[in-house]
């Protein structure tokens, strides 16, 4: 094989390219990770905001207020049926309509109960609910209300009877994350 002469400019170019490679890789990684990191940030519940009793708090385009959480029935197997009533005043309809809603009851040790569909007999015999269909949180979001609308929201829960006292409602919305709300009771 014959000796090939390489010009000094080409040598410099090659060296430069070699050094630029790690920089290009790092940049590529960063650009890729940025999207994932943003998605992670928007899907996590990181900052709880404690909402004092009888006050409303802003989250995901609406003012949220806890109306009432009460035990409506106790089943024979030691499970309590809880009913949570909330009120939302819509401020930003577009932001408000982002599904899904995550409304759970949280125990002090971090256990969380998601809402359940309750049998009509357990709920509908309550006098003030007779003849009414109150939407769940996700149903309310999906109904696409106009700005300024006041929505009544109700969710049912089934949990061990002993937990009915210490649980707190926790509300998290896609448009509000990573912030979320934890409601306190009076007294």
């Amino acid at each position, binding site marked *: *094989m014959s000796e090939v002469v390489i010009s000094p400019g080409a040598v410099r170019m090659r060296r430069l390219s070699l050094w630029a490679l790690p920089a290009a890789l790092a940049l590529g990684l960063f650009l890729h990770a940025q999207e994932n990191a943003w998605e992670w940030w928007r899907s996590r519940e990181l900052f709880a905001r404690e909402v004092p009793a009888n006050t409303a708090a802003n989250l995901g385009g609406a003012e949220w207020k806890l109306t009432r959480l009460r035990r409506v029935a106790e089943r024979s197997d030691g*499970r309590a049926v809880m009913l949570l009533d909330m009120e939302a005043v819509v401020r930003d309809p577009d932001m408000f309509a982002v599904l899904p809603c995550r409304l*759970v009851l949280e*125990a002090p*040790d*971090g*256990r*969380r*109960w*998601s809402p*359940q569909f309750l049998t009509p007999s357990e709920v509908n015999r309550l006098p003030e609910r007779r003849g009414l269909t109150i939407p769940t949180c996700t149903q309310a979001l999906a109904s696409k209300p106009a700005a300024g609308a006041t929505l009544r929201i109700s969710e049912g829960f*089934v*949990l*061990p009877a002993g*937990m009915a006292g210490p649980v707190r409602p926790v509300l998290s919305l896609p448009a509000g994350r990573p912030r979320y709300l934890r409601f306190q009771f009076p007294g």
Partner: protein
Amino acid sequence: MSSVFAKLGALLIAALLLAGMQRFTPGYTEITGPIPLKGDLGETLAGRGFTVRADKVLLAETLRFKAYGREVERNSGGVFALVIARLEAQPTSTTVSGAIWLSAQGARFVASPRFQGAPRLLGTDRLEPSLPQRGVFIFEVPREAVAGATLLVAASRWPRLDTQAEIALPVTLGTPAPLIDLGELAYE
């Protein structure tokens, strides 16, 4: 001339190395696959999201149950394998829908879909924390797939970087009962 041989040799070594790596390093699905949690019958296994305990395995040729007010009877070209188990969500409400009977030969049998509406079927209803569900997983397997099987329990059929409980089941299970009524099973 010798430099040509050296180059060819280097190429060959590189090719061998790459082929070896492709053959013997774990694949992407294995690296990002289920995180195993091994245990035995009667042992409570606490995974991410749920706890599981399998108590008993029963075999049957025919199963009878009541679904939507109708008496239903199911038979099989193989045999029904029933695993009585206890599931509980921890720490948040969740569904555990990936129960698999892994035979000693390596075949994966997903819980039978022929029992819709049967009482106390595990894996269908959502689990709640501190409210354990006791019920049954029903699998339909050929007779040769019974001995030395493993029960896999996970949140989904193909868990990715998530817990999969692997419960070793008895090597011998005796002869199947001719008929079991799911309504009369002792779950406790």
